[in-house]
């Protein structure tokens, strides 16, 4: 009972304070009319509602897409669809499955990670710890990374086809089995696909690693450097 009384009292004082504040606002001639009248700054309220509305719109669109996919795809989803292959009939929805695609995607992503992490992380370490920030070579490397990030992904696909499959694969075939007309390396394979994807994700890995390396405080980096390379920028 006592607790409740205190709460109600404090609420009352709050209300009193707010009323007093409003009276003050009404009397203050220096304030704009909207604050004097209503206690609301209209431009702020306008932009708050505008930005909040934009966020709500995006959330609404996302919810609509998800609901649409779930609504139309729910009936086709089953364990057989996820876990079986396309051997029976690829174009019959009631018989086909997507397990080979899931497996291929997983294998490709794992291989891609194996290829991209060493190159990307070493490049990022070089750029943050060793390279002079004003030299022309650093600028060229940074420009190349930015360029790689901006190129449309279909160009990477063409690059994978032209360079990895035709050039590297074709030359490997010519090197190892010159008499065999059937290509062994020079055809679409998960290896070439993951290498192409590795080239594509290289700028992302480099930028992310650079950011995280730059976030390390100099005081934390120095002791680590004492154990390692003889020269660096930070120590």
């Amino acid at each position, binding site marked *: 009972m006592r607790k409740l009384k205190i709460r109600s009292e404090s609420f009352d004082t709050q209300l009193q304070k707010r009323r007093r504040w409003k009276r003050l606002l009404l009397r203050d001639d220096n304030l704009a009319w909207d604050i004097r009248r209503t206690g609301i700054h209209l431009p702020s309220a306008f932009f708050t509602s505008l930005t909040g509305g934009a966020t709500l719109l995006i959330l609404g669109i996302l919810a609509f897409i998800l609901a649409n996919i779930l609504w139309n795809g729910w009936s086709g989803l089953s364990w057989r669809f996820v876990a079986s292959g396309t051997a029976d009939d690829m174009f019959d929805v009631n018989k086909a499955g997507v397990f080979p695609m899931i497996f291929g995607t997983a294998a490709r992503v794992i291989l891609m990670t194996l290829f991209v992490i060493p190159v990307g992380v070493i490049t990022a370490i070089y750029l943050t710890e060793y390279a002079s920030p004003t030299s022309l070579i650093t*600028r060229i490397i*940074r*420009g190349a990374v*930015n*360029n790689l990030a*901006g*190129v*449309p*992904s*279909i*160009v990477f*696909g*063409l*690059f994978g*086809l*032209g360079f990895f499959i*035709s050039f590297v694969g074709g030359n490997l075939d010519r090197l190892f089995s010159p008499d065999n007309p059937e290509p062994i390396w020079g055809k679409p394979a998960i290896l070439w696909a993951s290498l192409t994807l590795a080239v594509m994700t290289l700028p992302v890995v480099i930028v992310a690693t650079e950011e995280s390396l730059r976030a390390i405080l100099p005081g934390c980096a120095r002791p680590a450097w004492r154990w390692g390379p003889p020269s660096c920028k930070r120590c």
Partner: protein
Amino acid sequence: MTATIAAELAETVVGGHHYRMLFLIGAMLFLVTFVANMVGDLVMHRLKGKLEGKK
């Protein structure tokens, strides 16, 4: 342009005219991004030099 490459590459003869033209489109796409990136980098570098007050 990207859609053209994606849609037509599967139907072409490897090494043929169509195939080569699609690669040319890819090279043009790359060139456009490259030039845009280079111009942006040059402008940014000049602006940085001016704003930081060193030449």
